[in-house]
């Protein structure tokens, strides 16, 4: 499989000034991300996640090693449209409305006006921002700003998406939509490198993860490999109480440990959706 | 959350009550505005004044000076300097009536200083003293102005008017003596205007006041001269005017003692 992102001994050290010592933000790391994969970058605050993304977006010069994106150096002009970067935090140019903001992004990506507007309309619809109309971006909630940032990143239909906390501040529906979009991008051959603190989401959609700590790469690999063990568990649903007791007894006889036999519960997401939009719980449908 | 209207209504009511109880005074507003503008503007108003003196015309220069003094209304020396400059400015080259022009400027300068009295505070008397000397200096600069002032008693009459006001404000010996020593010029002005009776009254007052002059020898000499002039004006041609005729301080009267 072709490589979308590659790094060899990539390192970033922020120079010290005066009595302040230099800060190694990213210690030499090797990295290969094949095309069509969703890779999560995990790590506590200050572990180097954002620095890694900024280097790959061409916004931060590495102090050691090399990096390529789509076989080009990250600062290559050709990557401006092929690679999209969604930084964390509030959006700039926040006195514009969402359509104006996307029109600006489209113009800078050299999209023809009509095509830019059509794509913008499509993504605004998909990301549930149509209702924002002519409101200024500064009046948007955090979640709306994140969704608009993603729309801006997707506007140029990039091959590589570098996302910094793409679901931070999003409600569960928004997160679900974003996850779905990322899956679709990956299915279409796109590559996603996303930094996140939402471990469940990462576990849900990422093919691989990198775990950084203090600028060092602590673990790397497919989720199945990193999370897998020799032991197996059995989760059973849909039996009546008698059948359940028999199954538990058999399990004990075979030397297994029965951890819990509990009544079946709805998923929290289903309950949330029921309360939020009045639809019936997923389990009841 | 709905906001209760009562606090807003109460605030509006209090404002209205305050407005009625103590209506806003324009002077207070003016002083407040000046206080805000002063620190930021003062250096630049100074440089603008200098620039107006270098490249602008007289009107602009004095308008700039007024701006400066609007920011520092209590600066009496500043008022005095600019009012004197205004009164003593040379007549325009194409002026057809230099005396009238000088008279006009003197009136404006005196009005300027009169306006400054309100903010002069404890220095009001000093301001009046400088006002007293301005007409005489202006006449020296533009002799044609003397002709214009003759009918009203000459510059000395104006000087006496302001000295009297200064004396009323601050009856210091110096002010009283200044009025006493002004008597010959004032009397000469009145004589020139044809008011012999008033001139003699001025001399009588000065003779009476000469007892208050602190320098006893000077007081005696001054009183003696004034008495001689007074007697001569009263028709006593036997009086010896040699000392008066030799005293420069009585020069204004010489023309009327022949």
């Amino acid at each position, binding site marked *: 499989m072709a490589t979308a992102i590659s790094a060899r001994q990539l390192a970033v050290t922020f120079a010290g000034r005066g009595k302040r010592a230099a800060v190694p933000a990213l210690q030499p790391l090797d990295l290969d991300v094949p095309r069509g994969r969703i890779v999560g970058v995990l790590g506590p605050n200050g572990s180097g996640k954002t620095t890694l993304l900024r280097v790959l977006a061409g916004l931060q*010069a590495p102090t050691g090693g090399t990096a390529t994106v789509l076989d080009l150096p990250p600062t290559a002009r050709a990557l401006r449209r092929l690679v999209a970067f969604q930084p964390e935090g509030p959006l700039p*140019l926040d006195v514009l409305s969402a359509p104006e903001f996307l029109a600006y992004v489209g113009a800078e990506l050299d999209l023809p*006006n009509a095509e830019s507007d059509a794509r913008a309309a499509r993504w605004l619809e998909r990301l549930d921002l149509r209702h924002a109309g002519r409101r200024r971006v500064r009046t948007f909630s955090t979640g709306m700003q994140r969704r608009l940032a993603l729309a801006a990143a997707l506007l140029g239909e990039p091959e590589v998406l570098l996302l910094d906390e793409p679901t931070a501040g999003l409600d569960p529906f928004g997160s679900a939509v974003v996850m779905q979009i990322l899956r679709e991008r990956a299915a279409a051959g796109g590559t996603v490198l996303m930094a996140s603190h939402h471990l469940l989401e990462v576990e849900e959609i990422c093919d691989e993860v990198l775990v950084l700590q203090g600028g060092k790469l602590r673990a790397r690999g497919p989720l199945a490999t990193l999370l897998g063990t020799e032991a197996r568990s059995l989760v059973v649903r849909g039996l009546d109480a008698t059948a359940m007791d028999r199954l538990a007894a058999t399990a004990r006889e075979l030397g297994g440990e029965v951890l819990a036999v509990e009544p079946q519960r709805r998923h929290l997401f289903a309950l949330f959706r029921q309360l939020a939009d009045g639809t019936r719980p997923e389990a009841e449908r | 959350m709905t906001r209760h209207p009562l606090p807003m209504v109460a605030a509006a009511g209090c404002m209205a009550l305050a407005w009625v109880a103590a209506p806003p005074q324009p002077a207070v507003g003016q002083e407040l505005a000046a206080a805000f503008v002063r620190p930021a503007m003062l250096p630049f108003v100074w440089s603008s004044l200098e620039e107006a003196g*270098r490249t602008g015309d007289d009107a*602009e220069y*004095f*308008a700039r000076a007024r701006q400066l003094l609007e920011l520092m209304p209590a600066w009496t020396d500043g008022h005095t300097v600019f009012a004197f400059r205004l009164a003593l400015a040379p007549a325009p*080259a194409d002026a057809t009536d230099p005396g009238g022009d000088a008279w006009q400027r003197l009136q404006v300068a005196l009005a300027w200083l009169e306006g400054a009295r309100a903010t002069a505070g404890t220095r009001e008397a000093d301001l009046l003293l400088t006002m007293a000397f301005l007409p005489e200096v202006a006449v020296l600069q533009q002799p044609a102005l003397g002709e214009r002032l003759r009918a009203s008693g000459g510059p000395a009459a104006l000087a006496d008017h302001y000295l009297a006001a200064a004396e009323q404000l601050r009856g210091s010996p110096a002010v009283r003596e200044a009025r006493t020593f002004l008597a010959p010029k004032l009397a000469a002005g009145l004589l020139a205007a044809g008011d012999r009776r008033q001139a003699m009254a001025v001399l009588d007052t000065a003779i009476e006041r000469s007892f208050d002059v602190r320098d006893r020898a000077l007081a005696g000499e001054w009183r003696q001269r004034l008495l001689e002039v007074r007697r001569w004006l009263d028709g006593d041609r036997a009086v010896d005017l040699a000392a008066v005729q030799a005293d420069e301080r009585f020069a204004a009267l010489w023309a009327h003692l022949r």
Partner: protein
Amino acid sequence: MIGRAWRRPLALCCRACLAAAWLPTLAAAGLAVLLQAMLAVPLPGLADAPGARTPWLHLPLLVAAAACAARAAAFWPLVAARRQGADLVARLQRGPLRGCGAAVAGALLAQFVLTLPLATVFARWLGAPARAVVVVELPSPPRPLLAAGQPPLTFALGGRRLREVHLRPLAGPPTGAFEPATVEVRCDGERIGTATLAESRQHVRIAAPPRPVQTLELTHAGGTVPLLFGPGSVTAVEAAERSAAWNGTTAAVVWLLPSFVALAVALLCGAHAALPTALTAAFGLLFVQTVGGAGPADAAVRALLRGHWVGATVPFSAWLPSLAAGSLAMIVAMLLRRRPGR
């Protein structure tokens, strides 16, 4: 559909500046009217002097310039360092200044739109004459002293049609008993007037004949006061009148220069400093260049209100120091921002 140009940083910044600055500018004009009424109490008998009303025109002009500069610096996230969302814009922008140049141009365009009515309509309300005259400062001769026994001073006019000649020499100590100097003024040999000068900077106007004049000659005709006709002491007022609207437009253009310098220096500071530092530098420079008179803006406003043709009083050569300073700051800012941060 929004036109292509309207989607670019220049137009976006211009719109943002206009939206942010029109109300403060209007309020400043209102305040200027109020302050003029409260502080500039006229003294009856003193001649009207529109040239002294520059503070009341400076106020809204300065507010418009400052509001546009502030909005541009705050709007464009790459003007100063450490701004939220700057990375998003930085990836999209081309050019060494990453759109900052366009943002500055947008701010200047917005400022021009706001200051044009101030420099034309508001200036007229403040008393600027309806027509402007060209006032030319005649270059001082190599030996500028005029006294008894000295040769006449000659000034080349190159066929200008004049309305007036203004004299404003420096006076020296009298060479004998004090007697004001008498100066004869001649145009191409024809005597047009006599000036009596007694003190330094005494201002004398002499009416000139309405015909082309090649040379102006000043001859000492009497008096003991020596006169020094240094730079700026002889000015000629041309006969032709110019449009006050164009004069206001020129003044509004000149007023862009301080903003250009201020924003360029803000860009320079902002390469490493955060927004408050960049804004402080910009405001400080703006204030010194306008109200402080360091630059052509103050002279342009003065000339506008005096009814002098701004183009002659503040010729293009006077713009050059500001243009050079702003351009230099831009170039250095460009060099500092050339590569991604290390």
